[in-house]
Every structure is written in C-alpha cells, then in structure tokens.
C-alpha cells in the first residue's frame, strides 16, 4: 500500500500520429500507453519511435504516467524501440506478449543496462507486462514475480481470444477464467491488475458494464482506446459517497482506538481492524483523486505512529 498510485485509466495513443500525441497532456487519464506495436504499420516503425522520442523530450510538464508499448522483444523492432525511446525518459514499458517469466526477465536485464548507460537509478523504468495468450495466463504467477519493476499485470483479451481461437463477446463469459487468474496472480504478488480494452467506442453502456464487472472482481484500472472512455471508467472507479463517509468514520474510529492503546474497535456494531482500515484508506485515496475529499490521508493515520 505504500506506493499506492491511482491507475484507473490507461489510454492507448498511436505512436505514429503527431496530432494525437500532441493532445496527450490535455486528457485526464491516469496514464497513457504510447503504442509502437499494433497501432503502427511496419513501414512506420522507425519514424514512429523517433516521433515518440521527440514528443517525450518536449513534454516537460508531465502530468500523467507515461508508458511506451514496444514491439515484442523477439521482433526486429523491440530492442531498437528501447534504445531510441528510453533516453527520453518514459516512466515504464508495456511489454506485449509477456508469455513467460523469462521474457520479462530479459526486458528487466535490458532496462538495467540502459539505466547504467544513461546514468539513471536502477529500477527507474517500470514494467507492465501484457498477459494476452493462453501460455501467459498459465504462467501468470511466475510473470507477476519475475521482476521488481512490475507494478501491475495487464490482461489483453483481444490477443487472448485469438490465441484461444474463440470470439470475444460483450458479455465476456469466455474471459472469466483468464481474467480471474490474472487477478489472483497480481493480488498474490501485491501488485495492481489492469483490465483489457473495450473496443466499441460508441457503446458507453457496454463499457460501463464491463468496467463495473472488472471493478467487482478486483481490477483497479482499465486500458482505453479512446479519450471519450475516460469519464465512464473514472465514474465507475469513483467511490460512492456512502463508501467515502464510511471510510472517514473507520479512520476516525481507528485513531480513537489507537488513542486507547488498541488496534481494534467497534463501529456501529461492526469490528474495525487492520484489513478494514486498509480498505478504507484505499477508498479515501481514490476519493481524493476524484476530488471527493480535500486532503490526502497520511500513512500515520492508517498504520499508527511507529
């Protein structure tokens, strides 16, 4: 919980479109994933990575987390993507086709080499692996623990359904097991879980339903293909007012308990202890990001003074 960072919305932006790159600063998503992989045609791979590099170098007033989706490391573009883009200091790399822990480890090694070469703190570049094949789903637990750089696992349903030779439906029943397994692996490793894209940009009801499902399961964010989807996703992830009020009461109760020298107290007949406090703290941090509470809750309030 110490490095809690809100990642409700991770917006894909094609790396070969200057008109779209220039708008990255204006959208209020939590992160963008600048895409050098699927969105960029083969003939533009080289131009796109240089465009992205220059955009990042000129984007000095960074106001969101910046990830770059490179081409797979076993493609002829993956290494070159890193070499060109990393000196422009993205926050992290979204690794496509992270089918095995070894693939992630290889990226980790490369990132360390670049960090040494660029004289950066080791571990500066974070990693978001995409679990988007049957093999990756089976390996989810190993992948989640394959690098200290990993802050979340991302589920990629489009490639996953392709690898399963099935159609993706709006109901998403065919994704249920994979979605859950990614989630378990992430939660067990103490990292976040990011849900797959919703491709129909005109179906806001469908997006809302899918995001609500992901949230209920335990996902904390979702990848997006259009800025119009940001608001819907943020609305779903916004805590309800009752949740916020209750969380405030929990924090107040636990502070009272600590004053009395105990870690457990009753609130309206229900026991408040560490897991309840932890959940309340999460709600309040999310509420702060939504502007629902004015101050960010401090660590001491949650864990008590050392």
């Amino acid at each position, binding site marked *: 919980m110490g490095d809690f960072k809100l990642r409700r919305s991770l917006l894909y932006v094609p790396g070969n479109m200057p008109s779209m790159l220039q*708008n990255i*600063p*204006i*959208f209020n998503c939590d992160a963008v994933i600048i895409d050098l992989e699927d969105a960029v045609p083969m003939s533009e791979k080289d131009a796109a990575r240089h465009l992205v590099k220059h955009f990042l170098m*000129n984007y000095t007033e960074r106001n969101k987390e910046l990830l770059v989706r490179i081409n797979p490391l076993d493609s002829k573009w993956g290494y070159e993507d890193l070499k060109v883009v990393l000196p422009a200091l993205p926050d992290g790399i979204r690794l496509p086709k992270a089918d095995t822990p070894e693939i992630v480890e290889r990226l980790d090694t490369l990132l360390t080499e670049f960090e040494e070469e660029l004289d950066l703190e080791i571990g500066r570049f974070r990693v978001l692996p995409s679990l988007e094949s049957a093999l990756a789903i089976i390996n989810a637990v190993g992948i989640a623990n394959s690098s200290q750089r990993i802050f979340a696992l991302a589920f990629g349903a489009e490639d996953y359904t392709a690898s399963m030779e099935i159609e993706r439906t709006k109901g998403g029943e065919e994704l249920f097991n994979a979605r859950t397994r990614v989630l378990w692996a992430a939660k067990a490793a103490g990292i976040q879980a990011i849900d797959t894209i919703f491709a129909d940009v005109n179906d806001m009801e469908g997006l809302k339903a899918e995001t609500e499902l992901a949230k209920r399961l335990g996902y904390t964010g979702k990848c997006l293909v259009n*800025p119009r989807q940001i*608001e819907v996703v943020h609305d779903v992830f916004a805590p309800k007012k009752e949740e916020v009020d209750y969380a405030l009461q929990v924090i107040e109760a636990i502070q009272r308990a600590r004053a009395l020298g105990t870690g457990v107290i009753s609130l309206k007949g229900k026991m408040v202890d560490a897991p309840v406090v932890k959940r309340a703290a999460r709600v309040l941090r999310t509420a702060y990001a939504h*502007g629902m509470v004015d101050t960010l809750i401090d660590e001491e309030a949650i864990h008590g003074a050392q």
Partner: protein
Amino acid sequence: MALNSLGREIPASYAGRTLTPYRDPFSNQPSGLAAPRPITRVNPGTSKLVGSLREAIEASGLKDGMTISTHHALRNGDYLLNAVVNEIAALGIRGIWIASSSVHPVHAEIIPHIKSGVIAGFQCGVNGLIGELASKGELQVPIIVRSHGGRARAILEGSVKIDVSFIAAPCCDPCGNLNGYFGPSACGSLGYAQSDALHAACVVAVTDNLVPYPAVPVVIPQTLVDFVVQVERLGDPAKIVSTTTRITTDPVGLQIASYAAQVIEASGLLQDGFSFQTGSGGISLAVADKMRSAMRRGNIKGSFGCGGITGYFVGMLEEGLFSSLMDVQCFDTEAVRSIGVNQAHQEISADLYANPFNRGAVVNRLDCVILGATEVDCNFNVNVNTESNGYLLHNTGGHSDTAAGAKLSIIVAPSIRGRLPIVRDQVTTITTPGETISVVVTERGIAVHDRHPELKEELIRRKLPVKEIHDLQKETCRITGTPRPLDFEDEIVALIEYRDGSIIDVVRRVKE
C-alpha cells in the same frame, strides 16, 4: 485616421459616412427619435397580391441608389435574395444597397451584379465568397458588418434606411399576415425580419405557401405589409434548417466542453432561474448536454434558453429544465416544430434579443453565453469575422451582443486550429472587445479575465487547469511555432461596427 480605445486605426469617414471610433461597451448614448415610416391607407376590397416579384419591385417604387433587405432565417437555403437581385438587374435599376440580416455562401450568385454596378454596397456582414473576393480586392463595394443587435439598432435609429424589405414568408395570407412556422419552407422564428417590417418604407411579403385569411399565429401583421407575392419556392428545405444538430464526438472538443461546463458550475450562476445561450456548434451542444445533466442532478429549473434555438434546447424546455425559450432563429427541424406548438417557445425580434439602444434587450438578462472564436488575443479580444488568411468570411451574429449582455461570457475554442494557435498577440480583426469576455476555455487550459478574480480563485480551488492567457499562448506556440503575421494593404474593404454604432475595427485588403 484615429486610434480607437483598442488601438485599431479607424478612418475619419468611409463610404460617405463620418465614423466614431469605438471607446467602450456601455457608455455610448443614443439621441433623437426612432426612424419614421410613411403612413398609408388600405381600404376594403383592396388587394395586396401582385403577380410576380418583378411586379412587386415595380409597385414598391424601388429606384437607383435605394436600399433593400431580406432576412436570413432561410440561411444557406435562401432563394429570395438572388431572385430579387436578378429581377432588379433585369429592370435596369442600379446602385442598390443590400441591408439584409446576413448574406450566405448561396448568395455568391449575385457577384456578377456587384461587378456590374447593380449592387453598390452591403449594409450587412457577409459569409463566404463575397467576403473573400472583397478581401482580395476583387469587389469594390463597401461592406459594413453589424451584429444582430447592432443591425436592429441601426434600423431603429435610421442610420440604415431600408426602402424596400422583401420578407420571405413561409406561411402568409393575402393580406400579409405571416409566420415562419408552417409550409414547405418553414424556418421557425422570423426574428431578424421584424425590424425591417416595422421600419422599411415598403414591405413586400414573398411566400410559397399562400394560405386562406387569416394566417395564424400572426407574427408579422398585415398592418405592416404593402404587397404580397407568390413564388414557387422560397428556398431549399434541406439547407434551411439542419435535420439534426449533433454533439461533437471529437475528444478534444469534449474536453473543452467539459471544462466549460465546470466553469459554469463554479460560477455559482447555475441555480433556479438560470438563463443560457449556446450556438449550434458541436462543442456548444456538448456544453448544453452537460448543463442538462447538471440541471437534472441539481434539480435546477432554469429561466430561459436564448438565441438560435436547437432541438437540444427544445428537449430541455419540454423536460421542464427551462421555463421558456427566447428564439430569434431556429437552427433545426425540431426547433421549428416546437415554436409552432409550444407556447413557452417565444419568438423574439433581433431588437428584443440584442439591440443596445432600446429599453432593454434579452441579452441583458443572460447569465451565461457560450461563444466561439477564430482568434483571441492576450487582452481577450475576439475575432469571429476573419480567418487566419485575413479573408472576411463570417458575420458577427450575436457574438458581441451576448458577450456584452451576459454575466458570464465563455469562449470555447481548440488551442490549435489548422496548425495555428488560437491565442495571438493581436487578432486579425476585433469583433468583440475583451472587456466583455469572461473566460477563454481551450483543451490546454482556462484563462480568466481579470474582471472575475473570484471565479478564477474558485476554478483553482476546484483544481481546474487555470492558466494566464500569455502562458496559454506560449504553451501552444511551443507546439505550433509562431505564425508569420499577415500582410495587408491600406485599402479598407469592410467596417466592423460595434453594436452601438462605433467602429471597433476595419478589414483591410490582403496583400497577395
């Protein structure tokens, strides 16, 4: 040449008229009496019907050098102005001034008559090719651009004297009672024609839908109409009103709309009795949509929606979010339908809407207006008349009127348009003075005029991206580079008249 208060060079006279440089939005006072109109008498049994447009022109007594008008409620679907000018040319009449409420691209057909001298000048703004050619120096006629309120003022005070007004009447009876609600060319409100009907020396109603007496509801009464003419078609219905006006789906436009909506909420004006105007552009409609949600959420009952009316506003009226609509022009078929059936959907004249020289216009009661811009400068002065190439392409509409009247006037515009920054050191043409603008909203930030320090503070408190307008300009120019200034000749092709009749700017010929 004299400098007006905004630093623009204004000549002492133009087209034989002595000019008053613009000073400020509110202090200029009118004097004298309203313009007179000849009294006539129509006895029982007299017919006003004449056989053709040409007969009507002859009967009206139109002569060389006189001034005619039409209204622009048929917008780019209008057939009437072209038909009238063609007939005037065929009759050998020359030197005619056009004082229509607006001229649209469809009226490019009259360009040969400008070149041949049938038309001597425009007492109105022009949209499209006529303005472009004038800007290039290819049309040697004076153009005087006025706002909707400014035009009503000019007619009322007699500085524009209309000799014959041709009023396109979608529903008209043989005595000249007329409205715009019904018929194949239904356009809804005839708000722009009302001043013409009251003050023109002769009024000709032209209709493609002659109905038995009486045509009700009576919007313009028979007491004002001299002649009635039937024509086959007043216009192309497909171009008169849009079938639908749509909210933008462009994420940048939606971001701008979202900020604009949050500015309105932060202003404190959004409460019972709220009054509001937007245009029909995609961003404006997106703002309207967000206000609709906010009003539903807060259970707020607004007072009136104003201006050009869209189906969006009709929806809000019928849902009870506004108690009335004040409609000077209908933008789409839904608005036309509504004005014919909803009693609270009130037709208003341009005079009632926006004239600064009467006993109080509706714009003075506006809480908030959303307006566009082609350019804004660091003093918040706004250009809507000329494009970045310097050509005069757009009319003022109600821009400067509503900005002056509303408590909160919000400019919504993308920070970059056609690779050019929207915020400039100097706008090409000043349409609306910065002292009547409250806020400029772009997707990259919100600039608040110094007149609204509390609003600025509140926006910052709400964590909205408030920026100084200079910083917004710098930020955008980092992406676009600094545009090269346009080169102009000294020759003046058009005057931009402020709503009170003073001259806020001039449009000069572009150096090619």
